[in-house]
């Protein structure tokens, strides 16, 4: 028989430990949220409070000067795109139909344009990645064909490789393709990154093959089988892939840094980094920029965090 007193002691010890761990985790949680708190309060502090040697923990009055400052620093058109002139070369002659048309939007603060760029970049990468990865993941999981093992091996190997290794050749490739300093130079490599394929192959493998076969026997075309049967069933996986790509491309600073140069093409993180180089100690301005860069993505993360967590854990299975 167990000694009741010892049992009591043991329970006490466990209790103390669990209270202790609660307290420590809460302390750490505070430390982890502090930088974000500091960004948001810093955005609304006056210059005096920001440069105080004794930190001001809570702004005594909330001012918008930093945000106004951020908005007036630089400006750029809200959007602009060019429709190139149609050129036909034949028999050594070049026929030119019309001339290039450039459509330019109204001038707005550069920060707004950067935000537009970032949203466009993240959304486009997300859509393209989900579509290509769902199609590729489906056949890699459910079809038998020549060269499958090779492709899958390449996918896994590429995932383990540091992305930055390919960046120098990528810059030259993009210049050769006339894509350097356009948002596409950032989007395309993200779409090519094989994590999404890996994730969705994992998901598609969980779908019973009979479902796909039954559909084929009923006479549906390959494309119909994919859109009407497969796609709805791997939707949770596609959701995870979407949110994962969205957040990662939003924050993919290195790629943006080397590909984008002109003011109107910057992303919001890159814009803040550029401002940081110019106004190193105007912390109010930098906090306002940081808030603009991080608050939208944090809200997206909080809304979809369930899918996000799923994406992280699914990617690790058998990883």
């Amino acid at each position, binding site marked *: 028989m167990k000694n009741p007193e010892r049992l009591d002691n043991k329970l006490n010890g466990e209790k103390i430990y*669990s209270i202790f761990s609660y307290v420590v985790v809460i302390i750490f949680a505070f430390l982890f949220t502090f*930088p*974000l708190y500091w960004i948001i309060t810093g955005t609304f502090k006056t210059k005096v409070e920001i440069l105080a040697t004794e*930190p001001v923990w809570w702004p005594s009055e909330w001012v918008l000067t930093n945000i106004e400052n951020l908005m007036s620093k630089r400006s750029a058109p809200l959007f602009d795109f060019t429709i190139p002139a149609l050129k036909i070369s034949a028999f050594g002659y070049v026929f030119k139909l019309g001339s290039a048309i450039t459509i330019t939007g109204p001038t707005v603060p550069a920060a707004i344009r950067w935000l537009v760029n970032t949203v466009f970049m993240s959304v486009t990468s997300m859509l*393209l990645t989900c579509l290509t990865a769902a*199609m590729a993941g489906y056949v890699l999981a459910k079809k038998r*064909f020549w060269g499958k093992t090779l492709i899958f091996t390449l996918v896994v190997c590429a995932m383990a490789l540091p992305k*930055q290794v390919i960046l120098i050749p990528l810059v030259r490739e993009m210049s050769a393709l006339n894509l350097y300093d356009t948002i596409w130079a950032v989007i395309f490599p993200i779409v090519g990154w094989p994590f999404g394929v890996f994730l969705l192959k994992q998901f598609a493998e969980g779908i019973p093959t009979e479902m796909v076969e039954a559909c084929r026997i009923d006479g549906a075309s390959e494309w119909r089988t994919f859109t009407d049967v497969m796609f709805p069933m791997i939707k949770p996986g596609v959701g995870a892939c979407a949110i994962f790509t969205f957040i990662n491309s939003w*924050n993919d600073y290195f790629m943006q840094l080397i590909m984008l140069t002109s003011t109107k093409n910057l992303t919001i993180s890159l814009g803040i980094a550029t401002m940081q180089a110019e106004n190193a100690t105007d*912390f109010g301005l930098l906090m306002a920029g940081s808030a603009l860069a991080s608050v939208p993505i944090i809200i997206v993360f909080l809304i979809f965090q369930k899918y996000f967590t799923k994406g992280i854990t699914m990617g690790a299975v058998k990883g």
Partner: protein
Amino acid sequence: MANKNIVLNMKSRKLMMRETVTSYLFLTPFLLFFVGFVIYPMFMCIRTSFFESTLGEKDVFIGLENYRTLYNDPVFWKALKNTMIIVFVSVPVTCAFSLWVASAIAKMPVIATSAFRCIFYLPVVTGSVAVTVVWKWMYNNYYGIFNFLGKEMGLIEKNINWLGDEKYALWCIILILLTTSVGQPIVLYVSALDNVDKSLVEAAEVDGATPMQAFWKIKWPQMMPTTLYILVITTINSFQCFALIQLLTAGGPNNSTMTIMYYIYYNAFKLYKYGYGNAMGVILAIIIAILSAVQFKLGEEK
């Protein structure tokens, strides 16, 4: 009979052909991006590392010259040493810390678990630039809270220029790196702890195992694949630590925070030595591959 077999064989081969063609049609969009913007540059990275290559000039083949220069470059060795310090400090600390946090929060009610999981993931979502900028302020010599708190608590006597001092700069960067790298491991460990076979743990408890024993003997071995995966991704992430260095110290003071990743960037995009940068990239990839292989070997043995 034989004739029939041949006909069948022909049919199945035809079917196989069709299957292959359809599969490749489905794969084409992905392969276009994958080959064009991942595989081809990868190949080019290796190729260019044997060339003298710079902006606006033709590449000149120089064999292993880039690698030889690399071998004799003291800054490269310094960068390698710093990178190794970052990796060997941040990987174990990240793993241990996230394992502890995960096991502490996994026992809590579901709402608390997911709230804490979110909080520890926040620095990752916030984005490297925003995180770096705010830390730069906190480390600031005159207006930063670290100097204020340090003096208040009597830990330091006078203001320390955290990022400008060779003694502290690298450690300051490691601290930020830690806060941005525990998020994913915590998510993974929480789900791994959730998937541990509960009946085994209960059986052990009935047999009188202490929580510590139950953890190390039952749960830990079952979580080995997760630990392995975390080790590999944390190692890769620590090697790639770039934004922190670029925005905070640019490798300084006196190269004390120079890392391979930053040195590659510096050579390629400041000095335009593409070939040299690529040679370094190849070496970096080899080091990461070796470390990952070692981790897998160790994990398998256990």
